[in-house]
């Protein structure tokens, strides 16, 4: 019984949650005059040393989260749903690297569930058996498409859709409401973003349909119909979905919509702060850490490029605590 309750892990996380960055700290960070001031403030919170680069600091924070999860959970595959985007990103990079012969050093990410070497080797040798079954089919198809058509966008669409389908499937298979909800929101948000981009580029319906991944909260066929008509039709369709509140942000800009989606997920996971059992609080902690890493990255990049406080405040995400 207690194995499914994650009693030890959740109580340990309750102490760790005290170290998460909160709203007032983010305000303070945005209010810093220079990039160096930001780094100093982050340094006081244990976020890296001055000699480290921003990316090194953020990478170390992500690694810290996964090291903690490794201590708390015997089998990290329960968190695969959060790692699939990184796996498919690496697969995309490996396919393009092998097909074009270009170097992709620095493009790979380390936070996936499959080591990048395994992915690269599978693509190089055209032996996809070391990859998960769903990834195998997508990799084979995407490689063939890129080799024959040299259409990188088509290859991206195939793999992005496969990543979303895998995320949704893993979410449903988890049997956990929070993971399933996260997967559903992720897929729906990606579909809406894709539909808006396709509307902007005036893509054909068949292209839009191929790009959209099915999910429960959206009718992708109706969304594809709306996408070929334009942004107004998409907004009109969304009025009758759980994403009606996002219409204003969607009209504003893609980044405003992305922020709305991230904030929605944070609001949905916030009740986990008071849940003493199950894997829910662990997943919420991972998402909260990813959210704060994303926000800190935006602020640091903004400070480095001299962007205004107002600009950064509009882009900073809501914090979990």
């Amino acid at each position, binding site marked *: 019984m207690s194995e499914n309750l994650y*009693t030890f892990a959740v109580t340990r996380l*309750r*102490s760790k949650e*005290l170290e998460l960055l909160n709203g007032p700290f983010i305000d303070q960070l945005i209010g810093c005059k220079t990039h160096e001031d930001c780094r100093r403030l982050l340094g006081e919170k244990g976020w890296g040393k001055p000699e480290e680069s921003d990316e090194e600091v953020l990478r170390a924070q992500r690694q810290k989260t996964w090291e903690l999860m490794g201590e708390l959970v015997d089998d990290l595959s329960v968190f695969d749903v959060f790692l699939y985007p990184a796996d498919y990103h690496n697969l995309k990079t490996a396919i393009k690297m092998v097909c074009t012969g270009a170097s992709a050093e620095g493009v790979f990410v380390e936070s996936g569930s499959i080591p990048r070497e395994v992915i690269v080797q599978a693509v190089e040798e055209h032996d996809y058996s070391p990859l998960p079954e769903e990834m195998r089919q997508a990799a084979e198809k995407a490689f063939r498409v890129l080799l024959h058509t040299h259409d990188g966008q088509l290859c991206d669409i195939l793999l992005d859709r496969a990543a979303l389908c895998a995320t949704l499937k893993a979410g449903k298979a988890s049997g956990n409401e929070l993971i399933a909800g996260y997967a559903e929101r992720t897929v729906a948000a990606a579909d809406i973003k894709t539909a808006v981009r396709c509307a902007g580029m005036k893509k054909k319906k068949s292209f839009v349909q191929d790009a959209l991944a099915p999910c429960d909260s959206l009718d992708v066929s109706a969304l594809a119909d709306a996408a070929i008509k334009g942004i107004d039709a998409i907004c009109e369709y969304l009025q009758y979905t759980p994403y009606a509140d996002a219409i204003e942000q969607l009209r504003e800009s893609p980044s405003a919509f992305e922020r709305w989606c991230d904030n929605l997920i944070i609001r949905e996971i916030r009740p986990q702060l008071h849940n*003493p059992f199950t894997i829910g609080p662990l997943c919420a902690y991972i998402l909260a850490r990813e959210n704060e890493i994303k926000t800190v990255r935006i602020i640091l990049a903004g400070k480095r490029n001299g962007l205004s406080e107002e600009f950064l405040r509009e882009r900073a995400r809501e914090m979990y605590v």
Partner: protein
Amino acid sequence: MSSLGIAFALLGAALAALLAGIGSAIGVGMAGEAAAGAITEEPGRFGKVLILQLLPGTQGIYGLLIAFITLTQIGIMGGSAEMSLAKGLLYFCACLPMGFVGLWSAIRQARASVASIGMFCKRPETFGKAIILPAMVETYAILALLISILSIFGIGGLNI
């Protein structure tokens, strides 16, 4: 028939100790996991979280007490172990409140203890409140204990 009476009385005593003991074992184990999580991050919390861990352990003691009183009353611990079937069934029924309420309340109290340990980790100043919340569940274990004790002593005076 007289041997069946003592068998039922003994079964009742065994159930009181067994069910309440199982509940407490599950409860203390569950709260212990949470306590270990709390101590891993802050070893200084040991003394306080130990109290919260032990709260679901009382049901096992109550079960033991009921079993002990029953064994004394029915003569297993000394004296005559002869009794009618009716009396044996009455002892059996008298032990049930402690057995079932002990089992269930220990598990529920453990869940409350785990939540309280989490609360204490986040806000150490709330320790007093953190103890009171799971302690409320204890009320029902004590009520069951009282009913079982009163019944067992009452049955002893019956002439059936």
